[in-house]
C-alpha cells in the first residue's frame, strides 16, 4: 500500500463517520476487527490487562453502531456534529497483505449550546487487503490529552 492509497482510504472513512453513515463504515471492517481507545494515562496498554476507554471486538463494534443509530443512545441524540482532520499519514510497518498506518487527528465535536471540543491524537491502523479491497483489521485512537477531562465521553466513533 502506498501512502497516497492509505490517505485516500482514511479520508474516505473519515467522511463516512462525519456523515454518520455507520453501516457503510462497518462494511470497511474485517470480521475480526478491533476498535480501541486506551485510557489517557495508559496509552500503551493491552486490552486484556489494562483498563481502556474503549476496547471493542467486532461484536461490540456492531453493537455500538446499533446503539448509535437508536435515538435512545441519549449521549448522541441528537447526533454530535463532527469534523475530522487527518494529517501526517505514514506507513510504519506491515507485511504480506497488511499495512500498519499511523496518522495524526483532530476531531472537532459540536453539540448544542456551544459545546465544542477537540479530540487530538494519533491513529494507529492495521489495514488488510481482503478480496482486493482495503479493510480495517484494527483501529486505535490514542488521545494526547492527559485525562479526558472536559472532553467528557467518547460516545461517538472517534
Amino acid at each position, binding site marked *: 500500500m502506498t501512502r497516497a492509497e492509505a490517505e485516500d482510504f482514511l479520508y474516505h472513512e473519515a467522511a463516512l463517520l462525519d456523515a454518520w453513515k455507520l453501516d457503510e463504515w462497518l462494511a470497511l471492517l474485517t470480521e475480526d476487527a478491533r476498535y480501541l481507545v486506551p485510557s489517557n494515562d495508559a496509552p500503551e496498554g493491552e486490552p486484556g490487562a*489494562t483498563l481502556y476507554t474503549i476496547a471493542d471486538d467486532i461484536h461490540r463494534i456492531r453493537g455500538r453502531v446499533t446503539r448509535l443509530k437508536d435515538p435512545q443512545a441519549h449521549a448522541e441524540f441528537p447526533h454530535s456534529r463532527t469534523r475530522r482532520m487527518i494529517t501526517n499519514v505514514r506507513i510504519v510497518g506491515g507485511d504480506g497483505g497488511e499495512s500498519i498506518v499511523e496518522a495524526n487527528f483532530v476531531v472537532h465535536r459540536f453539540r448544542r449550546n456551544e459545546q465544542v471540543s477537540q479530540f487530538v491524537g494519533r491513529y494507529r491502523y492495521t489495514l488488510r487487503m481482503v478480496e482486493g479491497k482495503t479493510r480495517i483489521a484494527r483501529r486505535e485512537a490514542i488521545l494526547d490529552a492527559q485525562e479526558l477531562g472536559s472532553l467528557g465521553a467518547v460516545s461517538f466513533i472517534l
Partner: protein
Amino acid sequence: MREIVVCPRFLFSYHTSMSDLQLVINDPAKLDFRVHRAAMVDPRILEQEMRRIFDRCWIYAGHASEVREPGDFVTRTLCGRPIILCRDSGGEIRVFLNVCRHRGAVVCRERKGNAKGYYCFYHGWSYDRDGCLDGVPGQSSYPASFDRKQLGLASPPHVDSYRGFVFVSFDPDAQPLRDYLAGAKEYLDLVVDQSPTGEMEIIRGTQEYAIRANWKLLVENSFDDYHLMSTHSTWLNYMKKSGVEIPKPPKGHVMPSHGVGKALGNGHAVIDNENFRGRPVAKWIAIYGEDAKPEIERIRSEVFARLGEERARRVCDTNRNLVIFPNLVVNDGSSVTIRTFHPTAPDRMEVTAWALGPKGESPKARAVRLDSFLTFYGPGGFATPDDVEALESVQQGMQAWREIPWSVMTRGIDKEGEQLNTDELHLREFWVHWDRYMAAPGTLAQEQAR
C-alpha cells in the same frame, strides 16, 4: 409573599419565600420528601459544602495497591488540595499535602512513580520518602530557631484505611474511620471477599472525566435503579442481542430482578440486587463467551469452598452499588468500579474511576472482567455516557429552580419494611445526612478559619 430573609442556614441573605428556607424537606408524617434545586446551582452552597462536608468527612484518597513498594507514590487532588499518596521507607501508607513548607509550590509533579524523596524545584528544598525535610540550600542564613524537624511535609489530620481503601479526613475532630463507615464496612467486605487472597487491586488505566453537573446528581445516579430501564435501554438491548437472558420484571418491580435499597448509617447507603447481568466473580453469562465458562465456574467453586454457600451466594449472585458519604461509589455489578468525584463548580465535577479486581486473578478472568466493565461503565461504555447526558440534562433544568424549586424524592416513602432498589430510601438517606452536615453549627468566622 416574597421577601428578603436572612437564612441562618447559609449565613447569607437569600431572596426567597419563607417556605424555601429548608433545602431538604423531610416530613414522613405527610409522606413528603423534597430537595431544593438551589442546592445544585448556588456557588455559596458549594463553598459551604467544601467546608462543612468535604472538610469534615472521611474522603477516599486511593487504594493500597496503587503504592506497593516503599517510595511508590501517586499524586492527585483531594477536596481541592494537591496530595501525595505514598509508601514510606518503612512500608507504611502515608498521605502528604503535596506542598512545600517554604513557599508552597508542589513538591511532586508526576502522576505516579517511585521516589527517593520529593523535591521543590523553586528554591531547592528537599524531603525524604517519609516527608522529613532533608535539604535546605543555604540553611546558615536562617536564624538559630529554624528547625528542620518542624518543617516536614504536612499530612491531613487523619489517614486510615479499611481493607485497602485509604481515606483521609481534614477534620482534626473526625470520628475513627471504622465508626464513620458504619454499615458500609459489610459491603466493602463483600467486595473484597471476591479475592482468594483477601486483597483486591486497582487495574492499570484510569478514567478521568468531567461532568457539567452538580456532584450530588452523580451520587443519586450511582445507585438509582429507577432510571436503568429508560436511560439504559440500548445497553439492555445489546445484552439481549448477545444472548443474555433479561427476565421480565417481577410483579411490582421496575427492574428485571429483585433488589432492595438500604441505609447503612452516616449517610452511606446501598442497593443490593439479585444479579441478572453476570459477574466476573462469579456468574457466567453468554456475553462472556463459551470459552470463559470453565474459568468462571472454577472461580465460583473457589468462592463457595472458601466462604460457604450462604455468603458465597451473596458474593457471587448479588450486585451492590454502594455510596460512601459523601463522594465514593463502589459499583460491584458487571465488574467492580471505584468512582470518586470532586466538585469544581456548582455545575461541574471531576470524576476519577478505576477498575478493581482480585489480586492474582488469572489473565482470562481479568480479560473477562475488563471486557464486562467496558460494556457498561466508563466514558466509552454503553451506559455511562447516557448517565452523563442525563445529569447534564438535569443541570440544565436546574436553571429554572426559581420557578420549579423542588425535586420530588418520595418513592417508597409510604411503605413499611423493605424498600426496593427503585424506591428512593437510599437517596433520601444521602440527603438527610447532607442536610445534617450543612446545618452543623458554626459561625462565619469559624467557617473562614477552617
